[in-house]
């Protein structure tokens, strides 16, 4: 007997989307010159026209940020700065539903995730960092750590508001001012955040938000008036940024790509593990830099895990992101969908075996069914390259040492997963894995108190916790 779910759509009535937006500079919305559309990737409906920031806009934003830094924000006591951040956190909580609906419309992620993960975590990030503002001398960087100045921040489209919070909250708590560029395909929640800054009466110029594409990002990276670059995005662009800032005195943090191994030992609790595998790769359509995209199964349980995983995947609900029962929403953009399709085709041509559950995908919008590839080897491109979509590559291993060797055989080192009931084995594996975040018997958990960031080509620095805060302060001996 099959139970059908009745549709449970969230209402979009709570949000008002303007037909056209400008930039948020010096506390005011200013008109842009050129515009480009932002669409709902689940329907291809044009939601609004977004300004494309050019040199003059970025200059104006940097100027406003510098002025606010010099005249207001760097002179204000930490106690007062903190109160502004608390205000922002509270207003985000008050308007959480509005943010969640807007995020889902612009990004395509299920409302369940934007409502339960993205928005609450973003507010929590501001609340956490608010408390740091008047305690910086206890952050382990000496008795008088100093802010860096103006931070240029470039965020991706996968967690638009959450990535904004990860960047803006620590920067402001440490006494910096910011110029933030939202992602090309997901600008709307950043623009709503600008309204929150106004409601919180944040001094003009402390937060400036420009919208645009990669060309706007390059203007920020190369701007001489900026002291710090914080970027989340691809490793390819991260390296371009690292080269661009090499001749300058800019500080840099980079949160880049990943190809995380999710290792299942033969003593793992299989049912919980299957949930963890699904969460690891299908959370947010797999648009997650720390996604558990390489499943490493111990050979003697591989068959059982795969059988249960396929059963579980049959029950994943793919479709309308605004439906509260939806598990997997729309792929964020046409370009990203093309990239996923291309890499999946490479998986086929290199001899891996593709499997997806039967699911009906909507006719409009950008969609990709949850997919696993079995028979994958380390040489396959789908085992090496970040797909950034709902595609899982399955490999097997015989001994724990082999699992670790395979897991670490990648230029990335952002995250990894371990599934085992044996405490000593779990801790052993967590020691051996070369990755910045290790989830043992869980996956894709985030918290403002918990540092996040990668080894090797997954980036520089951490975000979250005391470690993340230090990326916005001077006080250590090295440059």
């Amino acid at each position, binding site marked *: 007997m099959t139970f059908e779910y009745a549709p449970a759509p969230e209402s979009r009535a709570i949000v008002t989307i303007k037909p056209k937006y400008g930039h948020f500079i010096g506390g005011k919305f200013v008109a842009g010159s050129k515009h480009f559309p932002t669409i709902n990737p689940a329907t291809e409906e044009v939601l609004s026209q977004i300004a494309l920031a050019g040199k003059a806009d970025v200059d104006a934003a940097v100027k406003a940020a510098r002025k606010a830094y010099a005249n207001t924000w760097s002179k204000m006591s930490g106690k007062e700065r903190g109160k502004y951040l608390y205000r922002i956190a509270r207003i985000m909580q008050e308007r959480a539903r509005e943010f969640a609906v807007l995020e889902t419309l612009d990004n395509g992620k299920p409302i369940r995730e934007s409502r339960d993960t993205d928005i609450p975590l973003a507010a929590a990030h501001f609340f956490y960092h608010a408390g740091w503002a008047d305690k910086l001398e206890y952050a382990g960087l000496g008795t008088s750590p100093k802010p860096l100045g103006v931070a240029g921040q470039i965020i991706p489209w996968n967690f638009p508001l959450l990535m904004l919070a990860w960047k803006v909250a620590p920067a402001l708590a440490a006494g910096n001012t910011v110029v933030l560029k939202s992602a090309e395909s997901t600008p709307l929640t950043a623009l709503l955040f600008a309204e929150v800054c106004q409601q919180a009466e944040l001094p003009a110029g402390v937060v400036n938000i420009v919208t645009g594409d990669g060309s706007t990002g390059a203007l920020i990276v190369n701007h001489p008036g900026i002291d710090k670059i914080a970027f989340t995005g691809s490793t390819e662009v991260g390296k371009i940024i690292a080269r661009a800032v090499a001749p300058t005195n800019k500080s840099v943090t980079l949160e880049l790509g990943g190809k995380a191994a999710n290792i299942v030992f033969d003593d793992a609790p299989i049912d919980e593990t299957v949930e963890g595998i699904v969460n690891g790769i299908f959370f947010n359509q797999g648009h997650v830099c720390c996604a558990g995209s390489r499943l490493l199964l111990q050979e003697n349980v591989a068959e059982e895990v795969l059988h249960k995983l396929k059963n579980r995947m049959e029950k994943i609900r793919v479709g309308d992101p605004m439906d509260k029962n939806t598990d997997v929403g729309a792929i964020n953009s046409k370009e990203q969908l093309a990239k996923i399709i291309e890499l999946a085709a490479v998986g086929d041509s290199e001899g891996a075996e593709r499997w997806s559950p039967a699911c009906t995908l909507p006719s409009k919008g950008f969609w990709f069914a949850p997919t696993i590839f079995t028979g994958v080897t380390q040489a396959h491109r789908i085992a090496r390259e970040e797909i950034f979509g709902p595609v899982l590559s399955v490999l097997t291993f015989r001994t724990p040492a082999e699992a670790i060797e395979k897991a670490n055989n990648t230029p990335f080192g952002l995250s990894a997963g371990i599934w085992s009931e044996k405490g000593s084995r779990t801790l052993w594996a967590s020691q051996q894995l070369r990755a910045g975040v290790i989830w043992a018997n869980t996956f894709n958990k985030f918290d403002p108190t918990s540092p996040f960031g990668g080894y090797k080509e997954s980036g520089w620095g951490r975000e979250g916790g005391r*470690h993340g805060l230090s990326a916005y302060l001077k006080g250590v001996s090295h440059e």
Partner: protein
Amino acid sequence: MSNRIDVKKTYKLFINGAFPRTESGRTYEVKNAKGVFVANPCLASRKDLRDAVVAARAAHAGWNKATAYNRGQILYRIAEMLEGRRGQFVEEIVNVTGATKTKADKEVTESIDRLVWYAGWTDKIASLAGSTNPVAGPFYNFTIPESMGVVAAIAPENPSLLGLIDAVAPIITSGNTVVVLASTKAPLSAMTFAEVLATSDLPAGVINILTGKKDEIAPWMASHMDIDALDISGLSSKKHADIKVAGAENLKRIHSFKSADPGRIIAFMEAKTVWHPIGL
């Protein structure tokens, strides 16, 4: 006055616990402050660097796994060995750099004391750079700093011994292994220091010392894909940009420092955060 002829030392490289000559057969002349010939140390080649990186990579797993207590004792043992041979170092520094005996003596004293200082950090740095994180959920969550892997370093021209120790000691304190390029003009105390290392129970490959030209070796270090990080304190700041551009290919962590500081240890550590559910 006896007519005995001195037995002079051949200065070679220090790679994987052994003292090989450069595979290139190249040397350069070191003269003392008065312009008198002193020695022909090796002009290390790119292949020597590669060999040193291979040794450092192979040594990393064991050194990283050694207990902090053990690493501390070995660093302390290096200080003991250096103390025992301080006269030789003073003499060498005076001879090569023309420094006064008092100044050379001070440098050696500081070098010994610096090693003792770092020896004490091995089992304390984690409590500074680590944390337990009170996440909002039923999870035990902690962050521990751990070594990065293989770090390469350019030691400053001067002070040639203290500068070298300031480069290598913080790097190995946390469990990294290192390939260091010694002072070009005054490389002799670095190579004599290798003899100290060789008798200090330091596992082979943990510290590898090259002599040669910064302009040759630094770019090779920057572009080497199996080096995780670089300390370029000994490199002219005009050269930093090019090194950083080359190092971006594998996103090396590249730093330079002005003083001895625990931040110097932490700069070459990665923070690893582990989550585990709490429940019955």
